[in-house]
């Protein structure tokens, strides 16, 4: 049977990941598709998955009663969406909406967490990879906050 393993292996996030780990992760993976405008996650809702975006673009938004939905970042092809599945209480901290038709591989958070508990080497490897993404996003958020294109820059 054809599995998602080759797709996962080809994704930059899983580059050079040990084959046995890849097999474990593939067991938690499924193909998904979101229509333009569809919400993938809602602030406060359970974050049961993270996604490897294969095609399309999604936006991360904060809802504001006075200003409507404020887009803080967009994420596209080749990128990872979501780390809330990794950090208790496992709830989305933002609204996540597909801007265009989006194809992704969904990884079941509960399934992956269970495998990481069983196999700490896998857990550590994944944590290292996610930490890098979280640091990149933090750094980007900081530059954004600096408002570097303002007149005071």
């Amino acid at each position, binding site marked *: 049977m054809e599995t998602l393993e080759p797709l996962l292996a080809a994704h930059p996030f899983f580059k050079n990941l040990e084959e046995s780990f890849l097999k474990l992760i593939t067991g938690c993976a499924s193909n998904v598709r979101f229509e333009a405008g569809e919400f993938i996650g809602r602030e406060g809702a359970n974050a049961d998955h993270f996604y490897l975006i294969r095609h399309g673009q999604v*936006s991360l938004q904060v809802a504001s009663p006075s200003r409507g939905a404020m887009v803080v970042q*967009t994420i596209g*092809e*080749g990128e990872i969406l979501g780390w809330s599945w990794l950090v208790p209480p496992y709830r989305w901290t933002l609204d996540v909406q597909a*801007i265009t038709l989006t194809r992704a591989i969904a990884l079941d958070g509960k399934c992956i967490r269970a495998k990481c508990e069983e196999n700490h080497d896998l857990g550590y490897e994944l944590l290292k990879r996610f930490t890098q993404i979280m640091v*990149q996003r933090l750094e980007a958020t900081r530059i954004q906050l600096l408002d570097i294109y303002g007149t005071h*820059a």
Partner: protein
Amino acid sequence: MAPTLDEQMHISGSAEAMLPRAYAIRRVKRETADTFTMEFEPVDGASELTFAAGQFNMLYVFGVGEVPISISGNPANPQTLVHTTRVVGTVTKALGELKRGDRVGIRGAYGRGWPVAAATGNDVVIVAGGIGLAPLRPVMYEMLAAREKFGKVVLLYGTRTPADILFRKELEEWRARFDLEVFITVDRGSPDWRGNVGVVTTLIPKAPFDPTNTLAMICGPEVMMRFTINALQKRGVPAEAIYVSMERNMKCAIGFCGHCQYGGAFICKDGPVFSYAQIQELFGKSEI
């Protein structure tokens, strides 16, 4: 006959270089709420001003003061002198209030520009932030005129909001071309914006270029350039292949007064474009 670039550079080192010539504003185009592009023509029939991509002129608003502004026009078309300016303070505000037919004093062109010739045979990545797109526009014109000489050409442009996007129509035209990769991102979206949101550095990991065979040119606020350099180096672009355009306050613009001193170099004469390898010891230090 118009002076050659060498002659122009020579003039830059003489007293003549301190004398502004009178130019009349031929056209004003509002780009965004705080930026505008002006075309100038010499009043006294002075010869056209030959320039290289990345060079700048000193623009003198009579009775107000003088500011360095990069040339944003096409080096192959020196008859039309074009500058794109953002209003930040006294002189740029006064400049922005001038109309078609009004006069300004201009001297230049000064400084060392972008290493377009050195990029031949390489992929080229241009990273522009905000008004930093203006000094890079001449590079785009030059490369597009000899497109076959370069590998992949990638333009990454970041700005504050969709309303702050410079040269919008031109960017659209470039984006529609098959031989260019143009990515635009804004720090803050608006309800009708369907493009990328996030700082320009987030575009670098996924941009399609070969880091071992790339020449990068960056222009924007220093903070933006610092983080851009980090991201380029993370992808494996070496310091020697990264070029930045520096800004400091200027007065003489010809290496006399010392106002623009940057370590052992003068930005007006040795820059504004430097290779990152040349300045990395100084770059990012707060007291220079």
